[in-house]
């Protein structure tokens, strides 16, 4: 029993000494690092962006080879051509719904057909005046 107690005491003392020495060494190294560190001026926002862009460019170069060339139609990006097409179709639909001149069988005010308003009105104008009772 005595031997067991002595053994435990020696274990605690030995391990404690080792950990204490390790802690001392860690503290010493930290102090050396702090003392050895060169002062760095803070980076401006512009510099931060430049660094970020450099990193992004590197990343782009790395994956660029895997991305297919963007599709084009007569030298224009296909997405742009598709957007123009959709806008044109919508515009045409609006023009049709509003019966815009370009969508009509003949232009408003066209002289192809006589205005019935004018024809009927001028016919009425030319009725000769009749005195009352005659």
């Amino acid at each position: 029993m005595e031997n067991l107690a002595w053994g435990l005491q020696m274990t605690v003392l030995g391990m404690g000494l080792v950990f204490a020495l390790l802690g001392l060494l860690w503290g010493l190294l930290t102090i050396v690092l702090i003392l050895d560190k060169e002062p760095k001026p803070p980076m401006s926002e512009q510099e931060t962006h430049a660094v970020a862009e450099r990193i992004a460019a590197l990343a782009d170069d790395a994956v660029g080879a895997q991305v297919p060339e963007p599709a084009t139609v007569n030298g224009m990006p296909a997405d742009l051509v598709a957007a123009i097409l959709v806008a044109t179709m919508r515009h045409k639909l609006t023009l049709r719904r509003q019966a815009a001149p370009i969508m009509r069988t003949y232009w408003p005010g066209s002289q192809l057909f006589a205005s019935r308003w004018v024809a009927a009105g001028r016919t009425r104008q030319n009725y000769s005046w009749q005195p009352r009772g005659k």
Partner: protein
Amino acid sequence: MTMGGKTKKHLEVLREMRSRAVLGGGQKRIDQQHERGKMTARERLALLLDEDSFQEFGALATHNLNAFGLDQHRYPGDGIVTGFGKVSGRRVAVFAQDFTVLGGSFSEVQSQKITRIQDLALDAGIPVIGLNDSGGARIQEGVRSLAAYGEVFVRNVLASGVVPQISVILGPCAGGAVYSPALTDFVIMGGDSCMFLTGPEVIKAVTGEQVSALDLGGADVHMGRSGVAHLATDTEVEAIAMTKLLLSYLPQNNNEDPPQITPEDPANRMDEALNELIPDGENTPYDIRDAIASIFDQDSFLEIQPDFAANAVIGFARLDGYSIGIVANQPCFMSGALNIDASDKIARFIRLCDAFNVPIVTFVDCPGFLPGTGQEYGGVIRHGAKIIYAYCEATVPKISIVTRKAMGGAYVAMGSKQMRNDVTFAWPTAQIAVMGPEGAVRVLFRNEIKNAADPALREKELLEEYREKFFNPYRAADVGQIDEVIEPRETRPRLVRALEVLRTKVQSNPAKKHGLTPI
């Protein structure tokens, strides 16, 4: 000073006056109008009219009154911008009330400016479009502003049925001011506009009832309950776009035809889906708008009053590029039964189409008039008679298609052959009879069913017999009440051909001062 110098000075004065007129009630008021999310009168007109087409009249007109400090409030134009312009290349007369000038209050000068363009529009046979945004009569002018209303009203009535008149409500419209839009052919409400005869304050004072302006006369009220408005939009910009759209279905005047656009949808197109539109169940609802969308030119249907009396559908569409007026029962709302509101809605639309040479196509699926004391006490007889009157009076081409039920009085009323209908088609699913099978069998075979060994079985047998004999379009076709029974998918080509024949239809009514519509 030389003559040249004098002229230069005159020109400078004119330019200065014009730039003042453009500012209306001043920059501060314009900014306030913008803060409320509203446009000024001139901005609205710029949006409505084709570029560089506006010709203003009376930009410098102003009142000469001094009462109640009015001499301190003289603005060129007096709160209204009037003139002529073009919408999609068509000549129109326009006026726009300017809320930045004394709240757009209606004055004697405003009346003079409006009536001036009304008179010219009536002479030239061109539509009149009014953009309303006014707090009401200018109180300081007293009876002058009230008399001014009358001048506008009488011209509204004289122009009615001669040139299309469209009112766009873009702000408050109260008191006597509501009657001018009510006398016009169409009322379009945009944004948070409202219309009422007596405002919330007066109502609170007289009856104690508390109600907000929008709850009293907002677009929801007039689109859904009162039926005063015909179209509504969330914003002013949409309201103005809607005005252009609506105008595209209407002619310049009662002597001309509406514009025809170059057709792109083939006249012979048949939609197989139409053959499956009518459900097997006799009382199963379907949406008649699906049939309309399929039969008429693609994306051309413009429904009028979609929320008011939804048991009837009215609107404009194009068929082979021509403008058509559509009247239909809506089986998916109240089974398409006719009631007081639906009768008013349909009758007014028929008369409008007739006035402006727009052919009418009617889709019939109506089990009859809605029964009940509420309807009878409300005068459904008188209101229903309006439909009959309108159909009988109309001289434009009229075609009807019986899609399913056409029962009793409703069959007669909804454009039957005797109502001077030109062509009547029926789908094979049509059920044309005096009344439904249950009612008819109980009336005709009451004793037989009562004395049968098994009354329920006998009634079932008789119902089957009645359905087979009368619940189809062939008996009506036998006696010439139906011109042709067609497959639903054939409807479009059949309509195109029928209307091609009827395009030159001329029919006239006996000479009279005017008929006595059952108003």
